[in-house]
């Protein structure tokens, strides 16, 4: 017989009440775990979605003069970057945080009597970087094939707008358009002449409202040949997975690798990412806190009731020589067992709930991660909530006057 024997016997005897308390803790902890798991997964999703918004770091030669997308001014005649610069970026310590490295060579060309900006790109990287791009036609298969910005194609009379949605009679066609599959224009011809050479147009970009509307895109190697600048680059766009990484550090590391280049972060984008994630985290933390506080209040009330109900028993224990500390120990042991079980159950329920709820909050295939550290934190939080909210009733119980308590019926 030890004090723990009494605690254990009491738990077995009051299974219903113990279960009720454990459920209270489990609800509080479960909500916190679910919200934290959801928050973590949604943060991950927001981060990767924000990363899809495009480059957040631009590497350019030191001296530039042409405006590129409001970010940089580039001098097309003063190419200072080389292809190996792009591979050197992968030597930085934070290379795992880089999602896309998209090198570019820019040059002015004459297209059917008009001047246009030709960009040599690595199409795989470029399409990964600009995920919002939608193409009427297809991505180029060969070096001679091009993609045209909408404005270039319109000026060259390569495209003709299609009838707007309201004029469509066919229900199926309507549905397709709603799903984003109906192109706003059609390609009338797929050949253009650049600097006297005929090229095939593989596709035309939907209008973006950005600089690419006024650009022509070809494969990097081909454009380098066409412009007579082999292995040269005008700029390198980099997308870093920066939902929680210090972009300034990445910029500094790239600068260290490429001292001859100018590396800049698009701060606005980074700040927006950080702010969105921070707001979400704060919101979930507040909701978790409120639910835990309600759970703690419930435990407090139940424990107060339990102490009143057990006044006689506590009085008997005090009368036969239990110190106040022994009473506290006995009751705390009970609460500890209940809280641990509640914390574990809360973790399991919260994890299951976040699995079930994630599809309603996140659209991508982002997952809920099962981490032992979260289980441990849930149990510790359950213990803390249980112990703290029971502290006052238990101390009050230990101070019961034994002579009054044994008279209590």
């Amino acid at each position, binding site marked *: *017989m*030890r*004090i723990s*024997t*009494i605690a254990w*016997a*009491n738990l*077995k*005897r009051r299974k219903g009440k113990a279960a009720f308390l454990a459920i209270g803790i489990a609800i509080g902890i479960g909500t916190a775990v679910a919200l934290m798991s959801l928050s973590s997964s949604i943060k991950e999703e927001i981060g990767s979605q924000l990363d899809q918004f495009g480059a957040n770091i631009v590497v350019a030669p030191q001296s530039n003069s042409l405006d590129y997308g409001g970010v940089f001014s580039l001098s097309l005649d003063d190419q200072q970057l080389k292809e190996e610069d792009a591979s050197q970026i992968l030597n930085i310590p934070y290379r795992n945080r880089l999602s896309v490295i998209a090198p570019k060579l820019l040059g002015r060309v004459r297209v059917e009597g008009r001047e246009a900006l030709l960009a040599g790109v690595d199409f795989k990287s470029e399409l990964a970087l600009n995920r919002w791009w939608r193409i009427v036609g297809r991505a180029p298969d060969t070096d001679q094939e091009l993609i045209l910005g909408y404005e270039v194609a319109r000026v060259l009379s390569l495209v003709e707008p299609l009838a707007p949605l309201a004029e469509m009679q066919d229900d199926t066609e309507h549905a397709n358009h709603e799903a984003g599959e109906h192109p706003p224009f059609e390609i009338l011809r797929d050949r253009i002449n650049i600097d006297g050479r005929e090229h095939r147009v593989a596709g035309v970009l939907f209008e973006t409202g950005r600089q690419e509307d006024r650009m022509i895109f070809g494969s990097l190697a081909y454009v380098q040949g066409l412009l007579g600048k082999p292995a040269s680059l005008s700029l390198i766009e980099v997308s870093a997975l920066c939902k929680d990484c210090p972009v300034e550090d990445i910029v500094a590391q790239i600068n260290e690798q490429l001292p001859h280049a100018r590396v800049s972060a698009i701060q606005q984008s980074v700040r927006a990412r950080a702010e969105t994630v921070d707001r979400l985290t704060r919101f979930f933390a507040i909701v978790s806190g409120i639910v835990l506080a309600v759970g703690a209040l419930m435990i407090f009330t139940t424990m107060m009731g339990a102490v009143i109900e057990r006044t*006689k*028993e506590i*009085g*008997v*224990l*005090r*009368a*036969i*020589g*239990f*110190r*106040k*500390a*022994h009473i506290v120990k006995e009751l705390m042991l009970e609460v500890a067992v209940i809280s641990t079980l509640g914390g574990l159950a809360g973790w399991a329920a919260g994890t299951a709930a976040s699995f079930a709820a994630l599809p309603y909050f996140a659209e991508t295939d982002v997952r809920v991660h099962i981490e032992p550290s979260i289980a441990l934190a849930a149990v510790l939080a359950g213990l803390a909530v249980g112990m703290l909210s029971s502290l006052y009733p238990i101390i009050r119980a230990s101070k019961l*006057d*034994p*002579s009054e308590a*044994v*008279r209590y*019926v």
Partner: protein
Amino acid sequence: MAFLEIDRVGKSYDTDGEGRLVRVLSDVSAEINEGEFVCLMGPSGSGKSTLLTIVGAMNHPSEGRVLIDGIDLYGLTDEKRADFRREYLGFVFQQHHLLPYLNAIENVMLPLATASAASSEKRDKAMRVLEKVGLSDKASRLPGQLSGGEQGRLAIARAIVNEPPLVLADEPTGALDSRTGREVMEVFLNLNAQGQTLFMVTHNPENARLAHRIINLKDGRVVSEVAV
């Protein structure tokens, strides 16, 4: 010097919370020697149970002092007084106050729960006491599965398991019929025959006649002390 010395003890309660005191005990003095069996009698409200809780180191007197084995109970800190109760006193309550979720032997072992001895040692000790009160065959029964007399004997077993020098009993047969009441009193008499000091509150004159001495209390004062 007597083993138990009650020295001009008085007790008042502030029953309405407004400072108006109700006096329950006034100038009570008594002595009990080691091995004695003393009964405390008196009408309801005479202060018998209050005096017993004061002697039981559970209820601070308003005046006077109580010495057991020369120790001034209310000169001790609250925690030391709890230790004193565990080591010096055994309690038998009228309603027995057995813990319903512990079986008979576990109830007996309760006062040993805070001791550092091995569980087997505690169990052996409890079993010996159960044998003493004739309940060794019912060690694993819950209190609810025992008769009133058996519950009374179990309460006595719990009171003596620590081998306390003094056992205090508050109307231990008060809730029992006369046959089971006698059963319980026999256990007390056996214990006393083995040298156990007993101080018992009772309403029952038959039980009181079994004691060495009877102290009569009326309106919170000792009105007589009779040797039987």
